[in-house]
């Protein structure tokens, strides 16, 4: 049994160490923003790393909106993202929310007149226990 415990501890410690190194986000800071992007606006979506196919699927039933694509740290499971969606939908200005677990991004469709405040968005994500680290705005 002790061997199993030792193997478990070695596995856990080595995994955490390797993954946190690859994540490269410092030493336990909850509000780690080292990868924050600069805000950007585009009318055709050609300057974002978000896959065009996924973006097209998300916007297929939308028109005349601005899409905020938010980079998120800590959104590693469906359960983790569920609260983000719930909180965002309490805002009347939010038309649609999409979650990409594989890319660690959340898409938020706002009415075109809405002034996007990234600090507010960060607070929403933080209230769910995740960190919003960057964003891009695209208008359609």
């Amino acid at each position, binding site marked *: *049994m002790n061997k*199993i*415990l030792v193997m*478990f501890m070695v*596995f*856990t410690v080595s*995994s*955490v160490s390797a*993954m*946190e190194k*690859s*994540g*490269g*986000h410092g030493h*336990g*800071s*909850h509000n*780690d923003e080292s*990868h924050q992007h600069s805000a950007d606006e585009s009318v055709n979506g050609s300057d974002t790393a978000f896959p065009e196919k996924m973006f097209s699927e998300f916007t297929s039933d939308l028109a005349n909106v601005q899409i905020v694509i938010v*980079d998120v*740290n*800590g959104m*590693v*499971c*469906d*359960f*983790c*993202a*569920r*609260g*983000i969606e*719930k*909180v965002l939908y309490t805002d009347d200005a939010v038309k649609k929310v*999409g*979650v*990409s*677990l*594989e890319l*660690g991004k959340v898409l938020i469709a706002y009415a075109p007149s809405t002034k996007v405040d990234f600090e507010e968005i960060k607070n929403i994500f*933080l*209230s*769910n*226990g*995740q*960190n919003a680290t960057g964003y891009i705005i695209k208008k359609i």
Partner: protein
Amino acid sequence: MNKQLYVVFTSLNVNIPYMGIYKNLIFATMLFMLSDLAQSRPVSWAGGSTIMYRTNSMMSSYTFHYSPTYKYSIGAEYVNDRYFNNHFINLRSTYLLDRHNTKISQRNIYLTGGISTKTNQDFSYGIHGDWETRRLFSSFSLINKHTKEKDYTENEFQLGVAPYLGKYDDIHTWVMLKAKKNTINNNWEIYPFIKLFQGDFLIEVGSKNSHWDVHFIIRY
């Protein structure tokens, strides 16, 4: 009250290395002392509630939790303790001591505690932690339980792997291995179980020596 205390502690501008950790520890201690609440997981999002049902070879329990913030939860648990042939209600709380998010992982350390409404001689406290990516999961817990009949400790470790990476709203599946021991039996039990979740529902099912180990969670 607790929020006010936390504001007071976090507003202290004392330049001591690792003071943030001490502040969290102090706040967590006061949370348990002042509210007489304790124990359990998970902590949900701010304003989120959780209903849990758990049954295993020793007990069954029904739990309701509310998370005022993502940092802690408070709730109550009805316990049918088959080992000691006892029924009682626990007041429970969990405090998120530390969380580290990266793009591909999340690591958490929680303090937990609980006290029975039947007698203040029945209480528990402990620590648990987890680390997960979309593919791998690991966790540990160490809980000290004090009862009128006996004091004992429960240890538990879990390892898991997701055989496929589901998208948002898909059914997500985890193949898990659990190792647990309490100082009553003093034997490690190791057994596999399956964890499934979709949307707001999660269920874990395992079996060891003809005893079912089931954990069901709804979050809203």
